[in-house]
């Protein structure tokens, strides 16, 4: 992972059209601003992880071995 040290008011550029600016830093965390093309998807990582976990969780009951286990439970 590339690690950079930036102060409030400073930016980094990713490729030609994405800019990430550090707006403010406090003990609560860093406030960042992102400039990117409209079609770029920007998500908090936790949300992406939760979407992926939910997709897996939504298929859990459909798993073959689990369905067998459920049948056993019903019997």
């Amino acid at each position, binding site marked *: 992972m590339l690690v950079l040290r930036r102060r409030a008011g400073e930016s980094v550029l990713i490729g030609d059209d994405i800019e990430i600016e550090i707006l403010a830093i406090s003990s609560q965390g860093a406030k960042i601003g992102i400039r990117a093309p409209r079609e770029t998807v920007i998500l*908090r990582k*936790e*949300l992406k*992880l*939760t*979407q*992926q*976990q*939910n*997709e*897996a*969780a*939504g298929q*859990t*009951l*459909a*798993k073959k*071995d*689990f369905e067998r*286990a*459920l049948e*056993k*439970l019903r019997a």
Partner: protein
Amino acid sequence: MRGMAQVETHYFGTMAYREDSVFDFPDGLPAFVHEKRFIPIESPQHSPLLFLQSMTRPSLCFLALPIQVVAPEYRLGICREDLVALDLAADRQPELATEVAVLVLLSVHDGLSATANLMAPIVVNLKTRRALQAIRQDSVYSHQHPVPRFMEQAC
């Protein structure tokens, strides 16, 4: 049965339910934003396991456990925005069991080992039945917390 409505489910057939048992997710769940109503299905032989059945998609049914079962020492960390959305006091964390029910969704992986998403528990306001998946903004808990001996518990 009077006062009971019915819902179609893939795994349990047609089920009767009480309207006041429905969990109401105004914003759905991440990856399932159109699923806004779920019913919790409990059955004694699966306890403490809980099935969260979508009322609009019969094939969508989550497995869940009360958070106390998975992590007895769990400290709630619901952000202000989510507390407000749940009509809860925004200046403190709610009390488990009296104000809110907190459930974690399970994923069963190959070999039937399971993990629970402790980073984003389902929080239900017990008074209004309003619910959401409250994604923590810290990184104290894992989104893939192992749940050992899951099948033994479930069976």
